[in-house]
């Protein structure tokens, strides 16, 4: 079957299997920041934004994004022009192996759209479903708070 949706601002008209996951579709389309960890909705590494809200692409049927906007990390920033959240993760030392990072950044992005001045516990609460096996979370929370500060200072929107 064919579906139409917007991926990182670009229209897509693509063939999908009716039972295919959004994770599989996005990787087929070259979005390699979207990774598979658990495949059952429990780890958060496959998080993408659907109409601006975080969802788990591993347990989302691809046809469900028909007519909607999907954002992956590729849509936030590039190597040459990283998003401030990406820069904050580097600056705070919040990346070790990097496997969880795309999901963390997209989830944090959604949090900061909803709440530009989160308290540390609110960051933890929002990221509760994103698991990291390396960092111990502290630096991830620091990075999100740093990006939030930059946002409030008008350095990004």
């Amino acid at each position, binding site marked *: *079957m064919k579906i139409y949706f917007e991926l990182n601002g670009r229209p897509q008209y693509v063939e999908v*299997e*009716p*039972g*295919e*996951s959004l*994770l*599989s579709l996005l990787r087929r389309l070259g979005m390699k920041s979207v990774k598979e960890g658990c*495949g*059952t*909705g429990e780890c*958060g590494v496959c*998080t993408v934004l*659907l109409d601006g*809200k*975080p*969802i*788990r692409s*591993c*347990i*989302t*049927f691809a*046809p*469900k994004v*028909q007519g909607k906007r999907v954002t992956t990390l590729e849509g936030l920033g590039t190597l040459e022009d990283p998003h401030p959240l990406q820069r904050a993760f580097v600056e705070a030392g919040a990346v070790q192996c990097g496997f969880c990072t795309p999901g963390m950044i997209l*989830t944090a992005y*959604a949090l900061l759209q909803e709440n530009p001045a989160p308290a540390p516990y609110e960051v*933890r*609460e*929002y990221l*509760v*479903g*994103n698991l990291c096996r390396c960092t111990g979370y502290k630096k991830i929370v620091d990075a999100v708070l740093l990006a939030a500060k930059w946002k409030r200072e008008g350095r990004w929107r």
Partner: protein
Amino acid sequence: MRLRGVLRFHWARDVDEALSLLRAYEGKGAILAGGVDLARSARTDIEGLIDITGTGLSYVREDPKGLRIGATTTLSELLFHPLSREYAGGVIAETLRLVAYPALRNVATIGGATVSAHPWADIPTMLVALGAEARWRNEEKEEKASVEELYKTQFRGIFREAILLELVLPHWDGVFVFEKIGRNAGDIALLNVCAGLGLREGKIAWARVAVGARPERGERLPWLEEMLLGKEPDENLWKKAEEEVKERIKVGSDRRASGEWRREVAGVLVRRTLARAAGKAVK
């Protein structure tokens, strides 16, 4: 995606269309709401997915019967809806905040949670405590039953041929609170409790207590509710409730927790919820 063998995906325009598609598949079709549960299903017999999220069943309304929640309302929509935040002392928000994490709540629906009704889940415990009524429709007629009664039947069979339309949560003159114990904030419950109290002239006028993830699905404790009636809400009463629960509650062991642990903790958790509910009811 654990579910295999899907051949077709349909966007139903209304409930009638979804029901006729369901019938046409003769048992090989499945209603799809958020899909977070179906995606994890190991079933291999499903050929057609029938998406009902565009059938007009996403709403939260209030009327004299209570709060009406459409089956495809997502947990996030419900959590942030002003009507649900005001309902029965804010118990809906209190419970849903502890269900998984935002990315799941953005997609998972209240109908999907009611039908999947995992024994460890928090939402069934809340619905049973609140006396929620479920309304569904098959090709012949519309039916309704309390969620509590529904869970005593082979309800999964019902929803192979029917669509859950809405839940009606009755108005309560009092407050409910919810508590859950899990290994970490985003984890599923090792035990959960939803309790409600109404006070009249300093005495308990009604009480509702449901305990779930025992590891069985949430059930009320009628003997405890009866014991509380007409009593003054104080520490001694909560202590007595704790002892009674430890003595009488039906719990079991699974790979997540032992029955012994659940018995001990159920008493403490019920005491805490009752004390908190009474504190809120007085305010």
